Protein backbone atom coordinates (compact mmCIF):
# COMPACT_ATOMS: atom_id res chain seq x y z
CA UNK A 1 0.00 0.00 0.00
CA UNK A 2 1.26 3.44 -0.93
CA UNK A 3 1.81 5.81 2.00
CA UNK A 4 -0.94 8.21 3.05
CA UNK A 5 0.66 11.25 1.45
CA UNK A 6 0.96 9.51 -1.90
CA UNK A 7 -2.62 8.30 -1.68
CA UNK A 8 -3.85 11.81 -0.98
CA UNK A 9 -1.72 13.22 -3.75
CA UNK A 10 -3.12 10.67 -6.18
CA UNK A 11 -6.68 11.55 -5.19
CA UNK A 12 -6.01 15.26 -5.64
CA UNK A 13 -4.31 14.63 -8.94
CA UNK A 14 -7.29 12.59 -10.11
CA UNK A 15 -9.60 15.39 -9.02
CA UNK A 16 -7.61 17.91 -11.05
CA UNK A 17 -7.58 15.68 -14.08
CA UNK A 18 -11.31 15.06 -13.88
CA UNK A 19 -12.02 18.74 -13.37
CA UNK A 20 -9.91 19.71 -16.37
CA UNK A 21 -11.45 17.01 -18.53
CA UNK A 22 -15.02 18.01 -17.63
CA UNK A 23 -14.19 21.61 -18.38
CA UNK A 24 -12.99 20.50 -21.81
CA UNK A 25 -16.09 18.38 -22.35
CA UNK A 26 -18.55 20.89 -20.99
CA UNK A 27 -20.10 21.89 -24.28
CA UNK A 28 -20.14 18.32 -25.58
CA UNK A 29 -22.01 17.07 -22.49
CA UNK A 30 -24.37 19.98 -22.72
CA UNK A 31 -25.06 19.19 -26.36
CA UNK A 32 -25.92 15.63 -25.42
CA UNK A 33 -28.23 16.90 -22.66
CA UNK A 34 -29.89 19.38 -24.97
CA UNK A 35 -31.16 16.53 -27.15
CA UNK A 36 -32.93 14.63 -24.37
CA UNK A 37 -32.77 16.88 -21.33
CA UNK A 38 -32.39 20.47 -20.29
CA UNK A 39 -28.95 21.26 -21.67
CA UNK A 40 -27.19 21.66 -18.35
CA UNK A 41 -25.24 18.47 -17.74
CA UNK A 42 -21.98 19.97 -18.97
CA UNK A 43 -22.20 23.05 -16.79
CA UNK A 44 -23.46 21.02 -13.84
CA UNK A 45 -20.46 18.70 -13.92
CA UNK A 46 -17.95 21.38 -14.73
CA UNK A 47 -19.17 23.62 -11.92
CA UNK A 48 -19.26 20.87 -9.33
CA UNK A 49 -15.80 19.45 -10.01
CA UNK A 50 -14.20 22.88 -10.38
CA UNK A 51 -15.53 23.82 -6.93
CA UNK A 52 -14.10 20.62 -5.53
CA UNK A 53 -10.76 21.19 -7.27
CA UNK A 54 -10.63 24.72 -5.86
CA UNK A 55 -10.75 23.22 -2.35
CA UNK A 56 -7.41 21.43 -2.86
CA UNK A 57 -5.80 23.41 -0.08
CA UNK A 58 -8.54 22.58 2.42
CA UNK A 59 -7.95 18.92 1.67
CA UNK A 60 -4.20 18.96 2.17
CA UNK A 61 -4.24 17.64 5.74
CA UNK A 62 -7.08 15.12 5.40
CA UNK A 63 -6.99 11.35 5.24
CA UNK A 64 -7.50 10.17 1.64
CA UNK A 65 -11.01 8.83 2.35
CA UNK A 66 -11.90 12.15 3.95
CA UNK A 67 -10.80 13.95 0.81
CA UNK A 68 -13.03 11.68 -1.24
CA UNK A 69 -15.91 12.26 1.15
CA UNK A 70 -15.45 16.02 0.92
CA UNK A 71 -15.37 15.87 -2.85
CA UNK A 72 -18.75 14.14 -2.57
CA UNK A 73 -20.29 16.76 -0.29
CA UNK A 74 -18.93 19.54 -2.50
CA UNK A 75 -20.56 17.93 -5.52
CA UNK A 76 -23.84 17.54 -3.61
CA UNK A 77 -23.96 21.27 -2.97
CA UNK A 78 -22.68 22.42 -6.33
CA UNK A 79 -23.56 20.12 -9.21
CA UNK A 80 -27.34 20.57 -9.13
CA UNK A 81 -29.75 18.50 -11.20
CA UNK A 82 -30.12 14.76 -10.93
CA UNK A 83 -26.40 14.23 -11.30
CA UNK A 84 -25.64 16.19 -8.10
CA UNK A 85 -27.16 13.75 -5.63
CA UNK A 86 -26.13 10.79 -7.79
CA UNK A 87 -22.44 11.63 -8.20
CA UNK A 88 -22.03 13.53 -4.95
CA UNK A 89 -24.13 11.31 -2.71
CA UNK A 90 -22.62 8.11 -4.06
CA UNK A 91 -19.02 9.32 -3.75
CA UNK A 92 -19.74 10.47 -0.22
CA UNK A 93 -21.32 7.14 0.68
CA UNK A 94 -18.68 4.97 -0.97
CA UNK A 95 -15.80 6.92 0.62
CA UNK A 96 -16.22 4.89 3.78
CA UNK A 97 -14.87 1.86 1.95
CA UNK A 98 -11.56 3.71 1.73
CA UNK A 99 -11.23 4.29 5.47
CA UNK A 100 -8.50 1.67 5.73
CA UNK A 101 -6.59 3.26 2.86
CA UNK A 102 -6.72 3.00 -0.90
CA UNK A 103 -5.76 -0.48 -2.07
CA UNK A 104 -6.80 -2.65 -4.96
CA UNK A 105 -9.31 -4.43 -2.70
CA UNK A 106 -10.74 -1.25 -1.22
CA UNK A 107 -11.06 0.25 -4.70
CA UNK A 108 -13.26 -2.69 -5.69
CA UNK A 109 -15.37 -2.17 -2.56
CA UNK A 110 -15.57 1.55 -3.36
CA UNK A 111 -16.75 0.84 -6.90
CA UNK A 112 -19.41 -1.59 -5.71
CA UNK A 113 -20.67 0.74 -3.00
CA UNK A 114 -20.79 3.60 -5.48
CA UNK A 115 -22.83 1.58 -7.97
CA UNK A 116 -25.20 0.34 -5.27
CA UNK A 117 -25.86 3.86 -4.09
CA UNK A 118 -26.50 5.20 -7.59
CA UNK A 119 -28.97 2.40 -8.26
CA UNK A 120 -30.60 2.76 -4.89
CA UNK A 121 -30.91 6.55 -5.01
CA UNK A 122 -32.11 6.80 -8.58
CA UNK A 123 -34.01 3.56 -9.01
CA UNK A 124 -32.48 2.99 -12.45
CA UNK A 125 -31.48 -0.45 -13.67
CA UNK A 126 -29.33 -1.43 -16.62
CA UNK A 127 -31.29 -0.43 -19.69
CA UNK A 128 -32.88 2.67 -18.16
CA UNK A 129 -30.54 4.79 -20.33
CA UNK A 130 -28.64 6.42 -17.48
CA UNK A 131 -25.18 6.46 -15.97
CA UNK A 132 -26.04 3.03 -14.57
CA UNK A 133 -25.55 1.62 -18.07
CA UNK A 134 -21.92 2.73 -17.99
CA UNK A 135 -21.37 1.82 -14.35
CA UNK A 136 -22.67 -1.73 -14.27
CA UNK A 137 -20.36 -3.14 -16.97
CA UNK A 138 -17.46 -1.11 -15.58
CA UNK A 139 -17.89 -2.26 -12.00
CA UNK A 140 -18.64 -5.87 -12.93
CA UNK A 141 -15.59 -6.00 -15.17
CA UNK A 142 -13.32 -4.35 -12.62
CA UNK A 143 -14.37 -6.70 -9.83
CA UNK A 144 -14.09 -9.81 -11.97
CA UNK A 145 -10.71 -8.78 -13.39
CA UNK A 146 -9.29 -8.21 -9.91
CA UNK A 147 -10.95 -10.99 -7.96
CA UNK A 148 -11.27 -13.83 -10.47
CA UNK A 149 -8.63 -13.11 -13.07
CA UNK A 150 -6.05 -11.70 -10.66
CA UNK A 151 -5.17 -8.95 -13.14
CA UNK A 152 -3.06 -6.07 -11.84
CA UNK A 153 -5.25 -3.08 -10.89
CA UNK A 154 -4.18 -0.95 -13.79
CA UNK A 155 -5.17 -3.58 -16.34
CA UNK A 156 -8.39 -4.24 -14.50
CA UNK A 157 -9.19 -0.54 -14.59
CA UNK A 158 -8.39 -0.31 -18.29
CA UNK A 159 -10.80 -3.16 -18.95
CA UNK A 160 -13.41 -1.41 -16.82
CA UNK A 161 -13.05 1.76 -18.87
CA UNK A 162 -13.61 -0.21 -22.05
CA UNK A 163 -16.65 -1.80 -20.48
CA UNK A 164 -18.01 1.63 -19.56
CA UNK A 165 -17.53 2.71 -23.14
CA UNK A 166 -19.63 -0.20 -24.37
CA UNK A 167 -22.24 0.83 -21.81
CA UNK A 168 -22.28 4.38 -23.12
CA UNK A 169 -22.75 3.10 -26.68
CA UNK A 170 -25.58 0.91 -25.43
CA UNK A 171 -27.53 3.93 -24.15
CA UNK A 172 -28.05 5.34 -27.64
CA UNK A 173 -30.46 2.82 -29.17
CA UNK A 174 -32.72 2.48 -26.10
CA UNK A 175 -35.59 4.40 -24.57
CA UNK A 176 -35.03 6.35 -21.34
CA UNK A 177 -36.92 4.99 -18.34
CA UNK A 178 -35.50 7.29 -15.66
CA UNK A 179 -34.65 10.95 -15.31
CA UNK A 180 -35.80 13.86 -17.41
CA UNK A 181 -35.19 12.05 -20.69
CA UNK A 182 -37.91 9.54 -19.76
CA UNK A 183 -40.51 12.27 -20.33
CA UNK A 184 -39.62 12.13 -24.02
CA UNK A 185 -40.66 8.49 -24.17
CA UNK A 186 -39.86 7.07 -27.63
CA UNK A 187 -38.29 10.28 -28.75
CA UNK A 188 -35.34 9.59 -26.45
CA UNK A 189 -34.26 6.65 -28.65
CA UNK A 190 -31.23 7.43 -30.82
CA UNK A 191 -29.52 9.79 -28.39
CA UNK A 192 -26.56 9.02 -26.17
CA UNK A 193 -27.03 9.53 -22.43
CA UNK A 194 -25.09 12.48 -20.99
CA UNK A 195 -24.62 11.01 -17.50
CA UNK A 196 -23.26 7.74 -18.85
CA UNK A 197 -20.89 9.77 -21.00
CA UNK A 198 -19.60 11.88 -18.11
CA UNK A 199 -19.13 8.66 -16.12
CA UNK A 200 -16.89 7.36 -18.90
CA UNK A 201 -14.88 10.59 -19.02
CA UNK A 202 -14.30 10.47 -15.27
CA UNK A 203 -13.20 6.86 -15.46
CA UNK A 204 -10.78 7.69 -18.26
CA UNK A 205 -9.19 10.31 -16.02
CA UNK A 206 -9.00 7.89 -13.12
CA UNK A 207 -7.20 5.50 -15.42
CA UNK A 208 -4.80 8.19 -16.60
CA UNK A 209 -4.07 9.12 -12.98
CA UNK A 210 -3.57 5.48 -12.04
CA UNK A 211 -1.15 5.05 -14.90
CA UNK A 212 0.98 7.78 -13.38
CA UNK A 213 0.84 6.51 -9.84
CA UNK A 214 1.00 2.80 -10.50
CA UNK A 215 3.71 3.54 -12.98
CA UNK A 216 2.25 1.50 -15.75
CA UNK A 217 1.06 2.01 -19.25
CA UNK A 218 -1.84 -0.03 -20.51
CA UNK A 219 -3.11 -0.57 -23.99
CA UNK A 220 -6.86 -0.28 -24.07
CA UNK A 221 -8.92 -2.56 -26.26
CA UNK A 222 -10.19 -1.28 -29.54
CA UNK A 223 -12.96 1.10 -28.75
CA UNK A 224 -16.40 -0.39 -28.75
CA UNK A 225 -17.97 2.32 -30.81
CA UNK A 226 -16.52 5.56 -31.99
CA UNK A 227 -19.93 7.16 -31.77
CA UNK A 228 -19.62 7.63 -28.04
CA UNK A 229 -17.10 10.41 -28.25
CA UNK A 230 -17.29 13.71 -29.96
CA UNK A 231 -15.61 14.28 -33.27
CA UNK A 232 -12.14 15.47 -32.54
Amino acid sequence: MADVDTQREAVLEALDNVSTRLTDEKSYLTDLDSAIGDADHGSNMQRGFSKAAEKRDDFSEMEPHEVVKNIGTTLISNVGGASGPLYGGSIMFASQELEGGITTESSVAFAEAYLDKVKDRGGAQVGSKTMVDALVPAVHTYKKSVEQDDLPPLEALAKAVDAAERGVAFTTPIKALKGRASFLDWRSVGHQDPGATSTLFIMEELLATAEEYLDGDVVRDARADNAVRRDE
Partner: protein
Amino acid sequence: MIGLVVVSHSASAAEGIAEVAAQMGGGNARIVPAGGDEDGIGTSPDRIRAGLEEADDGDGVVVLVDLGSAVMNTELAIEMAADVNAAIADAPILEGTLNAAVETTSKKATIQSVVDRAEEAREYRKLN
Protein backbone atom coordinates in the same frame (compact mmCIF):
# COMPACT_ATOMS: atom_id res chain seq x y z
CA MET B 1 -47.92 20.14 14.50
CA ILE B 2 -46.51 18.28 11.53
CA GLY B 3 -44.70 20.59 9.13
CA LEU B 4 -44.68 20.51 5.36
CA VAL B 5 -41.87 21.28 2.93
CA VAL B 6 -42.61 21.89 -0.75
CA VAL B 7 -39.71 20.98 -3.04
CA SER B 8 -40.20 22.09 -6.62
CA HIS B 9 -37.59 22.81 -9.27
CA SER B 10 -39.00 26.33 -9.38
CA ALA B 11 -38.74 28.57 -6.33
CA SER B 12 -41.86 30.45 -7.35
CA ALA B 13 -43.83 27.26 -7.92
CA ALA B 14 -42.89 26.11 -4.41
CA GLU B 15 -43.90 29.47 -2.94
CA GLY B 16 -47.17 29.60 -4.85
CA ILE B 17 -48.10 26.07 -3.88
CA ALA B 18 -47.37 26.86 -0.25
CA GLU B 19 -49.52 29.97 -0.55
CA VAL B 20 -52.56 28.12 -1.93
CA ALA B 21 -52.16 25.34 0.62
CA ALA B 22 -51.84 27.79 3.51
CA GLN B 23 -55.42 28.85 2.80
CA MET B 24 -56.61 25.26 2.90
CA GLY B 25 -55.10 24.82 6.32
CA GLY B 26 -57.00 27.88 7.53
CA GLY B 27 -53.71 29.71 7.96
CA ASN B 28 -52.61 27.30 10.69
CA ALA B 29 -50.51 24.85 8.73
CA ARG B 30 -46.68 25.09 8.83
CA ILE B 31 -45.65 25.08 5.19
CA VAL B 32 -42.16 25.93 4.02
CA PRO B 33 -41.35 26.32 0.32
CA ALA B 34 -37.89 25.04 -0.64
CA GLY B 35 -37.68 25.29 -4.40
CA GLY B 36 -35.08 26.17 -6.97
CA ASP B 37 -31.34 26.18 -6.57
CA GLU B 38 -28.60 28.77 -6.66
CA ASP B 39 -28.81 28.98 -10.45
CA GLY B 40 -32.56 29.11 -10.76
CA ILE B 41 -34.37 25.99 -11.88
CA GLY B 42 -33.33 22.97 -9.86
CA THR B 43 -33.35 21.70 -6.31
CA SER B 44 -30.76 22.12 -3.61
CA PRO B 45 -30.14 19.68 -0.78
CA ASP B 46 -28.90 22.54 1.37
CA ARG B 47 -32.08 24.56 0.88
CA ILE B 48 -34.22 21.51 1.51
CA ARG B 49 -32.33 20.73 4.66
CA ALA B 50 -32.90 24.28 5.90
CA GLY B 51 -36.58 23.88 5.01
CA LEU B 52 -36.83 20.68 7.00
CA GLU B 53 -35.37 22.38 10.03
CA GLU B 54 -37.64 25.38 9.66
CA ALA B 55 -40.78 23.29 9.22
CA ASP B 56 -40.11 20.98 12.14
CA ASP B 57 -41.41 21.89 15.57
CA GLY B 58 -40.51 18.45 16.89
CA ASP B 59 -43.53 16.64 15.47
CA GLY B 60 -41.87 15.81 12.16
CA VAL B 61 -42.17 16.87 8.55
CA VAL B 62 -43.73 15.59 5.35
CA VAL B 63 -42.11 16.61 2.07
CA LEU B 64 -43.88 17.07 -1.26
CA VAL B 65 -41.70 16.91 -4.37
CA ASP B 66 -41.97 17.42 -8.11
CA LEU B 67 -39.54 15.39 -10.26
CA GLY B 68 -36.61 13.02 -10.01
CA SER B 69 -33.85 15.15 -8.63
CA ALA B 70 -36.19 16.77 -6.12
CA VAL B 71 -36.73 13.31 -4.67
CA MET B 72 -33.03 12.48 -4.59
CA ASN B 73 -32.01 15.80 -3.08
CA THR B 74 -34.77 15.48 -0.49
CA GLU B 75 -33.53 12.04 0.46
CA LEU B 76 -30.04 13.47 0.88
CA ALA B 77 -31.38 16.39 2.89
CA ILE B 78 -33.30 14.03 5.17
CA GLU B 79 -30.12 12.02 5.74
CA MET B 80 -28.25 15.24 6.55
CA ALA B 81 -30.93 16.57 8.91
CA ALA B 82 -30.65 13.54 11.14
CA ASP B 83 -32.55 15.23 13.97
CA VAL B 84 -35.70 15.81 11.89
CA ASN B 85 -38.19 12.99 11.50
CA ALA B 86 -39.27 13.34 7.87
CA ALA B 87 -40.99 11.38 5.13
CA ILE B 88 -41.58 12.00 1.43
CA ALA B 89 -45.11 11.67 0.04
CA ASP B 90 -45.48 10.05 -3.38
CA ALA B 91 -48.13 12.53 -4.50
CA PRO B 92 -48.76 15.19 -7.11
CA ILE B 93 -47.04 18.21 -5.62
CA LEU B 94 -49.75 20.88 -5.59
CA GLU B 95 -52.74 18.64 -4.95
CA GLY B 96 -50.82 16.61 -2.37
CA THR B 97 -49.73 19.74 -0.52
CA LEU B 98 -53.34 20.96 -0.30
CA ASN B 99 -54.53 17.66 1.11
CA ALA B 100 -51.60 17.44 3.47
CA ALA B 101 -52.13 21.00 4.71
CA VAL B 102 -55.68 20.17 5.73
CA GLU B 103 -54.57 16.97 7.44
CA THR B 104 -51.81 18.65 9.45
CA THR B 105 -54.43 20.86 11.09
CA SER B 106 -56.30 17.80 12.35
CA LYS B 107 -55.69 16.95 16.01
CA LYS B 108 -55.09 13.33 15.15
CA ALA B 109 -52.52 13.95 12.45
CA THR B 110 -49.42 11.75 12.30
CA ILE B 111 -46.63 11.69 9.74
CA GLN B 112 -48.26 8.61 8.27
CA SER B 113 -51.74 10.14 8.13
CA VAL B 114 -50.34 13.23 6.41
CA VAL B 115 -48.46 11.10 3.87
CA ASP B 116 -51.59 9.02 3.26
CA ARG B 117 -53.76 12.07 2.82
CA ALA B 118 -51.25 13.60 0.40
CA GLU B 119 -51.11 10.40 -1.61
CA GLU B 120 -54.91 10.29 -1.82
CA ALA B 121 -54.57 13.36 -4.02
CA ARG B 122 -53.59 11.02 -6.85
CA GLU B 123 -57.23 10.02 -7.02
CA TYR B 124 -58.46 13.61 -7.11
CA ARG B 125 -60.53 14.25 -10.24
CA LYS B 126 -61.11 17.79 -11.42
CA LEU B 127 -63.74 17.45 -14.12
CA ASN B 128 -67.24 16.25 -13.32
